[in-house]
């Protein structure tokens, strides 16, 4: 055979594999409103940057009539490419080939590209669209999952790991996304659960649809398993690409540096955004926009635990992580979900050298038996642990109220914050004026001729004495009381001088965080 014919043969072989599961299966995929695995990769990555490996891998299953079945690429595509020039390792499960089911060779391809990503120290993106374990392959299929989970865990905090759920991802398979840094879901397409609707119906007699059990909305709003929600696959890929611009390739690098831009200060003025009355709400994201470059803010987990806001912005061209109480939702209290949300994000920023800015305005922890019984103590502890342990620059601005345990938890000086600034309207106290006055002046109020009048007077007294930043500033717990207009300038300066921050902790294998 001449080389020319051999080349022709290669081209034919390639063409066959590129057909995936064949026309019919592709038609089905399209009918479900989904792109094919290859289309997805090509849409997500820079043009012509994708190179595929292990195209000719074949499965080894011999039982249950599998021996004669041809599964192109064994139902998964792996390769390398770039996003805005950044190198990426990627895999995409191909639902058109045996429902994207995971067998031994399918898993081997995934673990191979994961190992690549770790050696090359570049981000890993996994596109999940799979019916689950390939039952015909038995324990080999389970082994495959386990080997993926192990690699997800070892790679955690070394390279960014991104999971894009574009189809079913059920049973044990959900634990790979759960172990990665960011999970993207798309309305009506993503479905994640441990046990599906059918099992729930048979065992428990409860009827629930796939969408209501583990659809995109559920994971974005209720469970907190997803970080980004999109209406379409295209929107989802835009979100992935945007995220890539904020994060470094690996934990020894810094994120891209962009050209510094001034915020849109005519649109966002801190003194106009924050109402004087600490009981009145406002959108803390407007305060973020008042200090970030170009007033840009890339929010994460927008729909879940909205009483805390997390996300990335840029200061002087550099990525910064924001953690902010949101007075607009549940008055910005800390509770189980918001503690989990913030703690994980703080750890992400710390692992990938991203300075953290904390904007504080909260009345404390959310009261309620449901919170106590669901473990707000151990969940709330996560945020303290994450802040205390983080060694990246940690800067706090107390915007308004900072009461009680909430004040301590929100990157206070006492948890080793580098800089703590407070606006003149800040109130740093054990609790709000009403509650404090009711306790401190209980006797006076009870024994007064007009208790309500006395109460009001005492509340006023307390406010005058404690509802300000100067008591804390007098002890050095607040470094500087600043004018709202100065906020960005001081934040920029704090980040600038913290560039070479050294924060050595005692040697240990690892701590025992309140998981």
């Amino acid at each position, binding site marked *: 055979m001449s080389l020319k014919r051999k080349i022709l043969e290669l081209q034919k072989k390639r063409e066959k594999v590129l057909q995936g599961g064949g026309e019919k299966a592709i038609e089905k995929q399209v009918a479900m409103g989904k792109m094919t695995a290859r289309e997805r990769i090509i849409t997500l990555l820079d043009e012509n940057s994708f190179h595929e490996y292990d195209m000719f891998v074949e499965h080894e299953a011999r039982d249950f009539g599998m021996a004669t079945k041809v599964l192109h690429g064994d139902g998964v595509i792996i390769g390398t490419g770039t996003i805005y020039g950044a190198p990426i390792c990627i895999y995409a499960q191909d639902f058109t080939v045996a429902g994207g089911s995971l067998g031994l060779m399918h898993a081997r391809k995934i673990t191979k590209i994961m190992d690549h990503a770790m050696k090359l120290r570049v981000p890993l993106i996994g596109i999940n669209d799979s019916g689950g374990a390939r039952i015909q392959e038995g324990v080999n299929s389970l082994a495959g999952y386990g080997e993926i989970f192990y690699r997800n865990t070892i790679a955690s905090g070394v390279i960014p790991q991104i999971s894009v759920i574009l189809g079913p991802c059920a049973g044990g398979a959900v634990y790979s996304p759960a172990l990665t840094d960011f999970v993207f879901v798309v309305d009506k397409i993503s479905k994640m659960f441990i046990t599906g609707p059918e099992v729930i119906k048979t*065992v*428990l*007699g*409860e009827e629930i649809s796939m*969408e*209501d059990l583990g*659809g995109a*909305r*559920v994971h974005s*709003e*209720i469970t907190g398993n997803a970080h980004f929600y999109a209406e379409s696959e295209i929107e989802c890929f835009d979100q992935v690409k945007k995220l890539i611009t904020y994060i470094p390739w690996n934990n020894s690098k810094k994120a891209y540096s962009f050209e510094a831009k001034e915020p849109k200060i005519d649109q966002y003025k801190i003194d*106009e*955004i924050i109402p004087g009355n600490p*009981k*009145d*709400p*406002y*959108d803390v*994201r*407007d305060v973020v926009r008042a200090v970030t470059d170009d007033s840009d803010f890339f929010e994460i987990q*927008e*729909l879940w635990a*909205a*009483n805390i806001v997390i996300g990335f912005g840029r200061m002087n061209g550099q990525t910064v992580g924001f953690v902010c109480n*949101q*007075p*607009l*939702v*549940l*008055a*910005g*209290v800390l509770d189980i*979900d918001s503690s989990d949300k913030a703690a994980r994000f703080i750890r992400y920023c710390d692992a990938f050298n991203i300075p953290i800015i904390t904007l504080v305005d909260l*009345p*404390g922890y*959310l*009261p*309620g*038996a*449901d919170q106590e*019984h669901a473990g707000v103590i151990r969940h709330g502890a996560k945020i303290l642990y994450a802040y205390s342990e983080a060694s990246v620059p940690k800067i706090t601005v107390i915007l308004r109220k900072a*009461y*009680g345990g909430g004040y301590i938890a929100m990157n206070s000086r006492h948890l080793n914050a580098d800089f703590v600034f407070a606006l003149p309207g800040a109130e740093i106290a054990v*609790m*709000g*004026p*009403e*509650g*404090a006055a*009711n306790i401190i002046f209980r006797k006076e109020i009870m024994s007064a001729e007009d208790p309500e009048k006395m109460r009001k007077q005492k509340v006023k007294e307390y406010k005058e004495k404690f509802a300000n930043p100067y008591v804390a500033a007098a002890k050095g717990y607040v470094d500087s009381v600043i004018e709202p207009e100065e906020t960005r300038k001081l934040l920029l300066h704090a980040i600038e001088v913290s560039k070479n921050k050294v924060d050595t902790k005692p040697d240990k294998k690892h701590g025992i965080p309140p998981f």
Partner: protein
Amino acid sequence: MATKPKTSTKASVSKKEEESKVRFNTLVVNDDKYRTFLTEKYKNRKKWEKPDLKKILSQISGTVIKVYVEEGQKVKEGDLMMVLEAMKMKNKIYFPIDGTVKKIHVSENEKIPREHLMIELK
């Protein structure tokens, strides 16, 4: 489920013209009343109730196979109450306290959900 949450904070509420249209809820923390939005999850939270030991609830959903007691019967802690089939297992359910059976709320072969009132004691 598929509707946008009411607490969606996409609209910037700080804009004054919008503020007049928005109706905030109240959240009380340590006697101070805050104007804010409540989440669906918060509104739907389960309020705590003191458990009534005389009301015996199912701990798992399943099918009642056999009830071993009658109304008016005196029972002791540890007496066999019923067999409830769940998760493909025939589970024996015993009385948690002494008492007299006031009312039986289930019948044999009935499918019951979790936390369903099965038997009341007096």
